[in-house]
């Protein structure tokens, strides 16, 4: 995983024709993250041990971005799902868990792969409900911290003063808030083990 360290941030401009790290980040945020709901659905369907899912997602993202360092893939959706399938097949082979045919599901997604994702265009009413649920799931203090930060525009220090709690606690609330909002934005419900 670390074999490409020389491509790190130290010399972001020495890449020649290769995309720079920030380009990869922008591409990742713009093209890949909106596919997260689809990716997660694929992983959930095809991998029995649900506690591996977060790691699998991370592996997919890491591989995809690693490849993007050489060249930004043209079809993000196809690339992400193909990467996910290959990863699952390798894992199944290694762990001798499930017959490889189990990953046939990606072909059922084949149609979806080629169409431009409407998910990039519209946040439907479902998202409103999901957003509500996410906010409901945050503890009242966490929600309050996020509101102070994003609606009132207070800094962490100001929030600590306003809420009369320690700065470390504010940090924790804000970090939890960021994670929950991110999960919501990209289509996954925050898991139950993460009551902020």
């Amino acid at each position, binding site marked *: *995983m*670390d074999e*490409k*360290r020389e491509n*790190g*941030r*130290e010399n972001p401009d020495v890449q020649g024709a290769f995309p720079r*790290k920030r380009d990869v*980040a*922008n591409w*990742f*945020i*713009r093209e890949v*993250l*909106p596919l997260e709901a689809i990716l997660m659905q694929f992983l959930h369907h095809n991998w029995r041990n649900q*506690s*591996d899912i*977060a*790691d699998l*997602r*991370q592996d997919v*993202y*890491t591989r995809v*971005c*690693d490849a993007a360092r050489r060249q930004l893939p043209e079809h993000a959706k196809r690339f992400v799902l193909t990467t996910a399938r290959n990863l699952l097949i390798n894992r199944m082979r290694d762990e001798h868990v499930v017959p490889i045919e189990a990953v046939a599901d990606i072909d059922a997604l084949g149609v979806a792969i080629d169409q431009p994702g409407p998910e*990039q*265009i*519209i*946040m*439907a*009413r479902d998202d*409103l409900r999901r*957003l*509500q649920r996410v*906010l409901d799931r945050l503890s009242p203090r966490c929600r309050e911290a996020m*509101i102070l*930060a*994003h*609606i*009132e*525009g207070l*800094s*962490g*220090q100001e*929030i600590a003063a306003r809420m009369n709690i320690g700065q470390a606690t*504010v*940090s924790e609330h*804000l*970090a*939890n808030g*960021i*994670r929950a*909002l*991110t*999960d*919501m*934005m*990209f289509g996954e419900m925050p898991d139950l*083990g*993460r009551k902020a």
Partner: protein
Amino acid sequence: MSEAQKFRPSTAMEIEIRAAAWLQRKRYWMWNDEDQVALDAWLDESPAHDVAFWRLEGGLSQAERFAALKHLLTATRTPRNRRILPLMFGAVASLAVFVGLLFGIPFIQQNNLHTYATAVGGHRTLSFADGSKIELNTDTVVRLASGARPLSLYLDKGEVFFQIKHNADRPFVIHAGDHRIVDLGTKFIIRRDEQQLQLAVMEGRVQLDAENNSAKPRTLTAGDVVVATAKGVTSERKPLTALSDELGWQRGELVFDHVTLAYAVSEFNRYNSRKLLVADTHVARLTIDGKFRTNNIDLFARVTRDVLKLRIETIGNETVLSR
């Protein structure tokens, strides 16, 4: 990390927790070059750190866009170290409003107007998250105040078909010159030109109001057609079939049911830059029936020639119909 996890702790989750701690530090607290160096060092430890951090950055900036309208209204603060990230979804103003509501902040009337327009012969549909739809006919200009509550639309000129999912908490208000139209759950058409405003209700109810409250608001129901000019407001009732003919433009059609040639020509001229002219008042008063494509002037001219025995003469950009 909670001890209550039944399964082995996910390394991805640990990384995410670390990334979130970094991001909140960078985003909400004092941040200097040393901090940035430390963050860069952590990111460079593993590509997994990169993607975890990027993902949260993307999520946060996405979430921030919902509150962005509100942000514009809060007093300008010292700028934070905040990166502008690319947009990932189309802007959905109603979400912003929704978040505003969730957060218990009453939404404030926006001055942010988006203009939507069609050219001569154009046709455009705007869809809203709640299923409401508005369609702009040819040569139309509207301005929409997206973040506002109630949802306000200014009809500057042209014709618009409204199909509004009624929401008592969030009425849809149309401003057209001196008039204000409020939907009460409905389908209706409004057409505005220099001389007059016409409002036809196909379904449900609409409230018509004077912008300066000088007249009593009146409630219109399906079949009501109101014409307002500088001289005053008149209303009549039309069968719904006639009203649906007036919506032929949604399919790119003009439907004429025993109308004068003057009217038919003026309708064609709304959709085409090539103009039709009638030679005299006698010709103007002839009547015609039929269904035409809005852009098919030639067919229309041929029909007048064959049926009404008129002469067609095209000079430059104008086609003249005469006896």
